[in-house]
Structures are given as structure tokens and as C-alpha cells.
């Protein structure tokens, strides 16, 4: 599990370097490069031993978040996914859960629109369009 997570993380850093605007420019010192597994040290947060990742209340949300992540992955391959599916909105969610989920996605992808990673920016625009469509459907036009 740890190794898998690390690999995906180093791909993220690699992608950011590839997306750099000027390939001829010298990479800045503060851009991280993938560090070999043996020398990297990830720190465990200390709070009584092990950090609490999720509260019981949002466990369901986290589950649906994971589902949404999977569905997002499929969305790239099958463009006909609905905005709801792209946003991980299920019919079992109440209005507060929908609002909460949309707010999280908006915050995440609004920030990503200024990412230096072109793929992340592209994904962000796609997601924001979906977020807006779902919001307007569930809460009406502004």
C-alpha cells in the first residue's frame, strides 16, 4: 500500500515538471523531483499514536468520495458520464450532503484552475462545469 501510494505521488511530481511552460528553462530548485524510496522519509502524524483520518459522521461521504474517484477515472475513458456521476452525487444523498460535496469539489477544482499542471487545469474546468450543472439542477439557477 505504501509503495503504491508513493509511486502515484512521484508521477504527480513528474507530470508537473512535464507541464512546465518552457522546456528549455532550468527547473527551479524548489520543484521536487521523485526521491528514491530508500531515502525518502514520510512522517507519521503523532496524536496519541495514530492520527484520525475520518470522523464516523463523514465515513459515508468518504466512501462515496472513493466511488466518485473511481467513476472519475472511468469518466476519462467514457465521456458520456453524467455530471452527477462525475461529481459523485448519488440519489441517496440529501440536499446538505449534495451541497457539501459540491462545495468540496468547487474548492478543490477552483484552485486547480491555476495549477501549473496542464492536465490538472483541464480536469478542473471539466469538473467545475459538472459542479455547476449539478448545482443548478439541485438548487435552481442563481
Amino acid at each position, binding site marked *: 500500500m505504501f509503495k503504491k501510494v508513493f509511486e502515484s*505521488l512521484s508521477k504527480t511530481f513528474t507530470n508537473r515538471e512535464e507541464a512546465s511552460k518552457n522546456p528549455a528553462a532550468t527547473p527551479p530548485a524548489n520543484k521536487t523531483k521523485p526521491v528514491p524510496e530508500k531515502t525518502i522519509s514520510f512522517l507519521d502524524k503523532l496524536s496519541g499514536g495514530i492520527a484520525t483520518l475520518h470522523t464516523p459522521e463523514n465515513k459515508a461521504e468518504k466512501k462515496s468520495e472513493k466511488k466518485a474517484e473511481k467513476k472519475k477515472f472511468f469518466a476519462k475513458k467514457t465521456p458520456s458520464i453524467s455530471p452527477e456521476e462525475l461529481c459523485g452525487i448519488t440519489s441517496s444523498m440529501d440536499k446538505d450532503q449534495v451541497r457539501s460535496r459540491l462545495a468540496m469539489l468547487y474548492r478543490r477544482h477552483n484552485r486547480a484552475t491555476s495549477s501549473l499542471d496542464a492536465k490538472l487545469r483541464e480536469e478542473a474546468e471539466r469538473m467545475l462545469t459538472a459542479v455547476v450543472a449539478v448545482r443548478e439542477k439541485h438548487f435552481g*439557477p442563481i
Partner: protein
Amino acid sequence: MADYVGIDLGTTLSGLAHLKPDGTPEIVPNADGERLTPSVVYFDPHEDVKLVGSAARDGGDPDRTIFQIKRHMDDPEYFVELDGKKWTPAEISALILAKLKRECSRIVGDIKEVVITVPANFNELARKSTIAAAEMADMKVKRLVNEPTAAAVYYAQTQNLNGRILVFDMGGGTLDVTILEVKGDNFRILTSEGARHLGGGNFDEMLLDVYAEQYQNQVNADLFSNERQRRRVLAAAEDAKKMLSKLQRVNDTIGNDTDGIARIDMTRENFDKLISGLLTRAIMLVEQALDSANLKPKDIDHVALVGGSTRIPKVKTALEKFFGKAPKSCGNVDEAVALGAAIFARKSARVSEVCNQSYGTLAYIVNAKTGEEGVQNSIVIAKNTPIPCSKTQIYTTSEPNERVIEVDITQGEDSDPRYVDVIGRITLEVPPNRPAGCEVEVTYSYDESQRVRATVRDKQSGRTQEVAVTYKGAGILSDEELRKRGSALRQFRIE
């Protein structure tokens, strides 16, 4: 010499204001008689001249014209290459500032010291770039002020606004929402949020697409085939957008040299539908700001409008519907920031600011209850923490016999590492043969100049490493380069 000068260096428009002897601020027009100068620079290939403003925007080869350079002030790698020379965002901005200084000085006297405004969520690099631009244009920056603060100062003075104010600043390129508490001369910023590609320029582009589609339907040909033609149509779309703020319907004819003209008919209703998606995003940014400050719409006493795009009627009605009260406008909404900056240059306003972003590190986190584990962004200083501030988190090493501890400094609120930026790294060597689980203190400090410092201390060995986040990249000038290029820039012919 001019006293008390404020400059709004905007994404699409820039303005300079000064204080009159009676203490009221006044916009100073440029040599073309314009109160606001388009933030556009054109490099002529035949004459050694840099055009700045309307002439640059409307006349030159688009490939030699630079628009919206402000969007790139925080990108350490960004530069524009022209005629074999690389221009950094700071230098391009310096040309705009130089024009303002030279032309406005003829009216108000020599301008040596200024207050310049920046977006509230400008990071340290963007702020440093702005200061560098002013220095290259031979002006000393008395203070950098956040744009919403400057606007709030202007509103407070002219409309006597006090209490909890939400400043909604929608200009040509960006939307910024800031919530402040104003009490006389005391300004306390509660939170600030921004959307980088949400402004009048986006509405223009949408109208342009409608024009192109209607032309295609009527004439069965492309409306434009090169960037120069496209920019001309974009200008026509912008004019139509402005007319639709006053009229319910606009008729226009558009065309090109080869395929003839077509008639375009646009109603305000259709325009409102066209931009509704972007306005929903704008309202969601307002919600995000309220959430961030733990406030509800009813907790806001006043909504202040800033930026030319707030003239669009649908923007005002959307905000009125959301807050249940009409937003305040000062008429000259695209001048409020520059005017506020001029007031700020003299007024000894006390401003309490906050961290505009969260700062943290990547940590391997295990959920004791669910067993889920993975690398996450662990926040050390949360967004909206009043500054200056310093916070410490304790972590433990994850493996035995680690010789090097590496701490990635992240910027962003998301727990998912993909959606935060790594802005620095500290590397600390530690003694060998240690077990896993050694405690490491990570302390972040954030000062009033929006500068982040990080310290890592290994508790067992006492070893410490400290770093201030610095930026290196193709788009950044060293101090020496800054001096040289500033010197050269002051000799340029800028019109």
C-alpha cells in the same frame, strides 16, 4: 513632487490616483486622456518603442502584444520571448508602471513613492515581482495593499461603511471575494478567496463564440482566420456586452474582408443565460468565502462591488438574491481600488491580515478507526490564521535507520496531495541507527509580508534546519539583473 499616490496594477486595466489637497482622491488621466490604462504592451518590430495601453491593445500584431501579464506574476518559470530577449512578468509590468509614472507625473509632479495594490491571494513571489516592477520603473513602494482592503477603505470614506463587509471584486480577468470587519480606521481581514479565470474577459470570449456561430450559420464561413481578426471581433463583443448593461437588446453587423457581413442580434436575456454558468461559479466562491469565515449570508452587513464587470445587471441581481439586500456600488467601480490606494498612502489605517492559504507538509496518515492509510497533506498553518503567526506540529519518522528527514512544504487546503503545491523542501541529516518513531518538530512561521519560513527540529539529536521559501526560475530576476534591467528600462521610449 506628488504626495500620496496609489496605483491599481490590474489584469486588464491599470489606474493611478493621488490625494488632492482637500484629502479626496482623484484619478490622474494618462497622456491619451484616459482615466484607466489597458494593461497591454506592444513591442513594435520597426521602431524602438514600446506601446502601452489602448494603442497596444487595438493596433499591433497580436503575436507581439502582451495581455494580462498579471496572471503570470506568481509563475517562476514564465517569460515572454521576443526578438531573442526574454521578458519576465515583472519587466512587462514595469513597462506599464513606467507609462503611468511618466505621463501622470506631468500632471501631479514627480512620482517617487507609491502604494500599489495586489490581489489578496497573491503569494510572496507575486508580491515580490510587483515590487520589482515598481523599482524598475523607478518608484519606491511605500506599501503593498490588498485590493479589497483598498476598495473597503474607499467605500468606508465615501459611503461611511462600517461593520462586516464582503468585497466582491470582478474585473477583466479574475474574481476576488474578501470579507473584512471595518471599524473606523481599523480593518480586519477575515478571509479572502479568488477565482483566477472568472471575469469580464471570459464573458467576452463567450460572446465571441456566439458571434462566430451566428456568422457561420448566416454566411457559411469562418468569422476570423487569424489572431488580429479575432481580437477585432473580441473588441466588438466587449462593446456589445457593455451595451447590454444599459439596453435589453443589441444589434450589430460583423464580418471580414472575404466573406461579407452578417447581422448579429443579442438580447440581455440570452446574454444572461450565456454567462449563467460562470455566475454560478461566482456565487459558489462567495459561499466558499462565507464558509471559510464560518459566516452566513445574513452575517454580512454590506456587499461592496468593485471592478468593471460588476456593472453587469445579472451580477447585481444574483448577489441581491443571495444576500437578501442590494449590493453597494460607487459608480466608478473600476477606479475604487486605485482611489482607495491613494487614501491608504496617507491614512494610517490599521490593517490586520490573515494567511491567504494553508501551509503544511506531506505525511503518511493512518486512520485508527477504519485502517485506511495513505500520504495526505497535513496542514500546519490553516488558512485565515491571523498574521504574523507561528505553528508547530509534531510528526514521527516512519522507518528505522533513516539518515535524512525530508519535509515538503505544501501550500493549499486539500488533503489530497495532488491538489496542493509543493513550494519548498527541507532536508535534515540525522544520526544513524535510530528506530522508527523518532519525533520531529515542524514549525512554520508566516509574517506580514506573506513570507513563509519553515524549521525542522529532530528532537532526539537536537539538529535543526531552517528555510525561507525562495523562488528560482526562468521568470525571476536576481537583484543584480533587476538593477541592470531597471536602468535599461528607464531609457526606453514608452508611448
